């Protein structure tokens, strides 16, 4: 009884953080039931995660842009445009993949820096500056694909980024061995960091959950990681896309929570005047955040082009709005200063899950848009209500 009460109390206090995960699980279970388990099949989950990849990467970037109280509308077509450049370099100029990828990422950083310059130094509102970018990159992508139309990419190494899987080494009972190992390492890493984190907190007399609840928490998260690993291992294993998302999440999560740069970003977001009076260069932080946004847009473009195995004239259409929606579903605050990397990625997965599940059920495109819009509105309403409750 005591533990149930603690659990409920914990849920109540942290409802903002947990809400999204609970919503995701509820949505997944609902779809599993409605599709007679088809939704939870290995193949479908693998597909779902791959299709969420290029939006998830954008969502992480735009989440940080929103944290510092700006917005970026140009990222969709920027991703499309840079994807087209990648295709042209690969196909028309025969540049090898390992050179193309860094070039595209650097171009992304340059594009983002231009936006950063306009916003931070010239003082143009981000909405307008990036709307201009939206138009310019849209024109650029049309220009790049003008002569050829859709550019087919038949470079296997490149396409593997969007469609390939990590090597399996060996099959164990029809399961992908390396993927299982990666999952196992993930679980161990999670347990290790959770325990050391808890130890630290106890050392400094911080509030921690009671031991049984903590064990329950460990078991629950481990089971989920294990289950997803097992699902993926049952199909083709971990895809390169998932590996890239995990890498982006790891790096950005580390930067935002553990580094001086991360602290400065959140400081600028929660009170720019105070940050300025603390000696933080607000314009430098703005620069860096837009630069990182450009790089992630480039990565998104690479993922999308590789997944389609071609660069099309309309690539990137509405990506920016999907990414912004994902960031808001993931709990970023429009007032600035609040938002998590993990939240943005989960938000992207929630949105991809909705699309995927409704496609499986054969829901028409018209109701699909409405339902996704409803979910976005609900997520933000939930966010506002829980915030009011705490204040």
């Amino acid at each position: 009884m005591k533990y149930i009460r603690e659990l409920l109390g914990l849920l109540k206090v942290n409802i903002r953080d947990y809400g999204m995960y609970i919503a995701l699980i509820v949505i997944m279970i609902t779809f599993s039931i409605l599709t007679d388990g088809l939704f939870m099949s290995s193949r479908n989950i693998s597909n779902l995660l791959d299709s969420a990849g290029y939006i998830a990467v954008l969502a992480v970037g735009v989440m940080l842009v929103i944290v510092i109280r700006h917005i970026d509308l140009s990222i969709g077509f920027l991703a499309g445009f840079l994807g087209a450049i990648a295709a042209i370099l690969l196909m028309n100029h025969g540049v090898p993949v390992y050179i193309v990828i860094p070039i595209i990422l650097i171009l992304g950083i340059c594009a983002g820096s231009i936006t950063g310059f306009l916003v931070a130094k010239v003082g143009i509102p981000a909405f307008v500056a990036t709307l201009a970018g939206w138009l310019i990159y849209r024109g650029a992508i049309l220009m790049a694909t003008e002569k050829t139309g859709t550019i087919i990419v038949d470079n296997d190494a490149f396409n593997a980024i969007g469609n390939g899987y990590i090597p399996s080494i060996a099959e164990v009972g029809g399961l992908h061995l390396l993927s299982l190992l990666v999952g196992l390492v993930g679980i161990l890493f999670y347990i290790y960091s959770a325990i050391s984190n808890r130890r630290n907190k106890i050392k400094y007399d911080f509030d921690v959950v009671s031991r049984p609840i903590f064990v329950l928490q460990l078991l629950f998260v481990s089971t989920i990681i294990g289950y997803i690993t097992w699902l993926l291992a049952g199909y083709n294993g971990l895809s390169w896309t998932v590996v890239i998302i995990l890498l982006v999440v790891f790096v950005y999560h580390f930067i935002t929570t553990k580094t001086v740069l991360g602290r400065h970003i959140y400081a600028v977001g929660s009170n720019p005047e105070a940050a300025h009076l603390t000696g933080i260069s607000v314009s430098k932080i703005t620069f860096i955040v837009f630069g990182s946004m450009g790089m992630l847009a480039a990565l998104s473009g690479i993922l999308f082009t590789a997944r389609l195995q071609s660069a099309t004239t309309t690539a990137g259409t509405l990506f920016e709005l999907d990414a912004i929606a994902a960031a808001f579903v993931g709990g970023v605050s429009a007032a600035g200063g609040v938002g998590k990397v993990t939240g943005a990625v989960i938000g992207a997965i929630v949105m991809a899950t909705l699309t995927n599940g409704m496609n499986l059920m054969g829901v028409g495109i018209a109701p699909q848009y409405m339902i996704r819009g409803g979910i976005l509105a609900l997520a933000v309403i939930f966010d506002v209500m829980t915030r009011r409750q705490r204040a």
Partner: protein
Amino acid sequence: MSDYILEMNQITKEFPGVKALSNVNFKVERGEIHFLVGENGAGKSTLMKVLSGVYPYGSYEGDIIYNGNVQQFNKISDSVDVGIAIIYQELALFPDLSVYENIFVGNEIQNGGVLDWNKAIVESKKMLEKVGLKVNPETLIKDLGVGKQQLIEIAKALSKDVKLLILDEPTAALNEDDSENLLNLLKELKKQGITSIMISHKLKEVIAIADKATVLRDGETICTLDASKGEINEPTIIKNMVGREITDIYPKRVGNKIGDKILELSNWSAYDAQLGRHVAKNVDIHVKQGEIVGIAGLMGSGRTELALSIFGNAMNYKIQGDLFFEGLAIKFKHTSDAIKAGIAYVTEDRKGDGLFLLQDIKNNISIGNLKEISSNGVVNDNEEIRIADEYRESLGVKTPSIQQLVGNLSGGNQQKVSLGKWLFVGPKLLILDEPTRGIDVGAKFEIYTVMNELIDKGMSIIMISSELGEILGMSDRVYVMAEGKIKGEMSAEDANQEKIMELATQ
């Protein structure tokens, strides 16, 4: 029997924890110019907000009798309807609208819901004539100077057929000519039968045009002085303004060693391009090591602006003059330069531009000096917790844990966190802007004690304060500022409330 247009009887107004007004009596005769004077926080603005309905009937105690009738104003428009108009220090004009649109905003001339702009232009010309302003009514407000904008506010009030005009420090932002102009206009309006109440810190103005002056202090009416009885003169007003007893809440400092000059400003001026005027002009001051230098003055005298111009020119003023820090002439380009040199500024507005309210105590304390506790850009969490806990303890922040969000703390504790953040940076010169504003006596004492400890360790402090008691109780030396200029300097022994107030109200 006098003919009172306004009688405010036994007005008491309380805010959570503070009694802003206590049994205030305030009577204004028809057709006079009545000044309301007192220190910052004496209750002048609160009283006028009660009168104008900003604080609705029922949120205060006492009676407002206007034109012989008891009034119950529930909202501002109620007081406007009976002919009371209030003009605030921060003008309520729309900069991108024209003069005539501003005059008739909220009071539009209309024909069945359709605005009659032509008539508005004609009418506005009449109003402009009344206030003696020769501008085209179609000019945009932002193209006019502050002095003219002030007159347009008055024209706006006249268009509503005002009987009682209230002006809250109307000349604070004006230059001499514009002020003169405004005072003449008030005399002119008086002839037309309009009664004025004016809040002002400039005693010269009071002496020049007041028929009566009521002095408030700490939320109470001290006296009403009458010009016709020869009571309105500088010594009398100042004596009544400052009569507060200074209780001995200031911890003693024993023999602090005062060293060489650490900061010196010579002929230092700061020009604010947005306001279009100098916020600090020809300032010559210095601060020695181990010294607390008080900067006294009233709100809007340029103290904060001076501090910000020293602190890395945080507001991007156009600076003239020289700044010497530890004997070297330095030009700071950014706040970070000033911090690197060893200057810290604790803001007067801790919620607005001091703290990160949505973050916890730990993050707020460490944010200024993360370099100290990180390697290769990665913050050492344990070290951070240790440091934050250390400052929480040494400053006596009352909180269960350093994980507490700063937004949930009381004012006193927030101020301690603000201080802790800068102590962790470890400056040589600490600028404290209103260090004890809005915090209780106990927390004040703790902050004074911390200041003394810092001085003992060889730090230097500039303390900006509106509280004369604090200035006299804590400073080694005092500068008095008014209108962006240093009006005087005195040692702690020579300083007293009257002297400071006299300089501050010039």
